[in-house]
């Protein structure tokens, strides 16, 4: 008997994923074919970037729609397509960073790029997954290459240790998530997120603690996997160690793209799967907004307080990225259309400023061999361009008004205040206090750049022209979006117009 093939229709909607898979094979074959060629690195980078650009073009060509694809495994709505665009942009920057960095051995660039594209494919699938099995596999397709790439600095003990910690704790987090998924499957009798959502909502209407207890346990367990991926408390412990030990070009990518895809999956898990909670739940409903709000407060506070005492800039930025996960988690907790708009707007802005900051860290490390705040002393005199763009990125991360980071944070906080609930007022106040704290440690780096003399007479820090151009390409939008955010907001609203 032939199986029913009707569900295979809509293959055109996964064209971006197919292009990415094709890129994987193209790079794999070229990597082997050009083993002896001197220009191998350049060719591989070019092919990878072309493949990613083709995937981005394919995204533009996909007609967004909310209908399920492939027997309900995926959906290609505007929300998913927007997130895919963000992660592919991050992958392009990540590929160029890897090619520029001396931390990735030339003869291993091919493997690095292949794993990077596999990871990007996983994130694209994660953004559109509407089935627990697909969600789990996409998450693992993001995780497993990440473990390998974190250990890519060969011969460096810190890198291997970072990778080992990442894989051991990551495996435990996915174990917790899987147990949660198995309970959800039993409760709902299906793996489809909307089906599970309907079952959970029906159970919530029954009322009573007993009917809700197992759902709460299952969802909290499932949350562990997402929290690990976006580095939210209490699953953030790996983050500083991995950021410090892993190669910097990979950290720049890791801090942005998997986080974006993780938040996309988390939003879909809670909103499409569990019915949209708006504001604080009525009695008898599940307390997801409360749980996520508390997690958000804990995440931003832990991240910001721990960042204050850090001397290693990569560790400092790791804690800062934990704090940013907290701000985003606040918007997920709110879950209103305004909050989803805020998250989507924040992701590309966060990409610009965070990858930019890591690019500067990489340039300073390559020139001086230092990853500490002290290494930035006197950077204003030694490399004025680097120091100025670093200041732009850091002040944008703080959320200071004429920069893009302010706009991003503004929409997140506006979403929290719009709920008009005391609880979210409190979360927003904690967020604002945290932003003020974050100014202290971001400004410490800027002060080291401009107000402190270098410890010894150091040569000027040179930046290659590709790195300088890339920095400009990240810094200019960070400046412009702070004043003229209309077009980006337009794209986001267009993406959200379609029913999810």
């Amino acid at each position, binding site marked *: 008997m032939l199986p029913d093939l009707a569900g295979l229709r809509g293959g055109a909607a996964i064209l971006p994923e197919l292009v990415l898979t094709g890129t994987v094979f193209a790079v794999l074959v070229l990597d082997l074919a050009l083993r002896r060629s001197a220009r191998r690195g350049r060719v591989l980078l070019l092919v990878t970037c072309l493949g990613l650009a083709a995937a981005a073009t394919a995204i533009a060509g996909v007609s967004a729609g909310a209908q399920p694809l492939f027997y309900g495994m995926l959906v290609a709505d505007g929300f998913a397509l927007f997130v895919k665009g963000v992660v592919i942009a991050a992958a392009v920057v990540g590929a160029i960073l890897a090619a520029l960095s001396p931390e990735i051995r030339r003869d291993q660039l091919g493997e690095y790029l292949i794993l990077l594209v596999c990871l990007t*494919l996983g994130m694209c699938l994660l953004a559109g997954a509407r089935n627990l099995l697909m969600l789990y596999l996409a998450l693992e397709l993001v995780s497993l290459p990440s473990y390998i790439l974190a250990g890519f600095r060969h011969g460096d003990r810190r890198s291997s240790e970072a990778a080992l910690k990442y894989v051991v704790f990551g495996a435990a987090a996915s174990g917790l998530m899987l147990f949660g998924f198995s309970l959800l499957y039993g409760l709902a009798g299906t793996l489809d997120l909307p089906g599970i959502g309907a079952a959970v909502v029906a159970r919530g209407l029954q009322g009573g603690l007993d009917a809700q207890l197992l759902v709460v346990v299952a969802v909290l367990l499932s949350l562990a996997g997402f929290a690990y991926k976006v580095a939210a408390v209490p699953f953030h412990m790996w983050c500083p160690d991995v950021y410090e030990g892993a190669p910097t070009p990979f950290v720049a990518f890791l801090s942005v793209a998997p986080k974006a895809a993780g938040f996309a999956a988390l939003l879909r898990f809670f909103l499409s799967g569990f019915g949209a909670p708006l504001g604080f739940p009525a009695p008898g409903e599940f307390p997801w907004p409360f749980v996520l709000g508390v997690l958000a407060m804990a995440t931003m506070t832990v991240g910001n307080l721990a960042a204050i005492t850090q001397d290693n800039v990569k560790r400092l930025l790791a804690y800062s990225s934990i704090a940013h996960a907290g701000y985003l988690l606040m918007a997920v907790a709110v879950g209103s259309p305004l909050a989803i708009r805020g998250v989507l707007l924040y992701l590309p802005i966060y990409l610009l400023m965070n990858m930019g900051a890591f690019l500067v860290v990489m340039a300073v490390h390559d020139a001086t061999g230092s990853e500490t705040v002290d290494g930035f002393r006197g950077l204003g005199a030694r490399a004025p361009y680097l120091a100025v763009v670093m200041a732009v990125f850091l002040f944008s991360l703080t959320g200071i008004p004429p920069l893009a980071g302010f706009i991003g944070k503004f929409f997140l906080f506006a979403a929290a205040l719009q709920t008009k609930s005391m609880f979210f007022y409190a979360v927003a106040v904690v967020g604002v206090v945290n932003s003020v704290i974050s100014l202290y440690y971001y400004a410490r780096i800027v002060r080291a750049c401009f107000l402190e003399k270098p410890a010894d007479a150091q040569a000027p820090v040179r930046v290659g022209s590709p790195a300088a151009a890339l920095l400009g390409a990240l810094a200019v939008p960070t400046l412009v979006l702070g004043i003229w955010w209309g077009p980006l907001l337009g794209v986001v609203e267009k993406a959200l117009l379609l029913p999810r």
Partner: protein
Amino acid sequence: MIPEPVRALLFYLCAGLALAGGCWVAFARNIVHSAFALLATFAGVAGLYAFLSADFLAVVQLMIYVGGVLVLILFALMLTSRIEEARVSNPTIGLVPGAVVLIAVSALLVYACVKEFGGTTDLPPGEPTTAGIGDALLSRYVLPFEVISVLLLAVLLGAVTIAGGRLRKPAPGGKPGKERP
């Protein structure tokens, strides 16, 4: 048809094997004992799959876990430390917080499971499942099936890359292709 008391006895045998093996894995002081106890757990779980008439999964569990994963772990064990060293580097610490977590979470989970599914005791009769899984993999679950092939490709490449760092000079007659010249 196997009579009911024998079935129950077999179930408790498999369950006991799995659970006792699990405890031994987690709390044995000797790491080699842990690895072999894992074998007992996997075998017990495979037996339970067979009990749930998941015949295909039971066989695959034995092949992949016992034949693959466990052998891999044993190799790592033999290569990383001698047995005596393993004993020293393997202390059980933090037993009190561990016990507290165990009691708290297990109470919650057991209560929830019994409350939720306490009424259902009888399972529907089992059917062979292999054909159903095959159909599902090629129709409804064809996309996950393809995704996992990409996943395995990435992992294969990654594992070779991690190991390849030290294989600068491949031994003659070794695996061709990935070693660096």
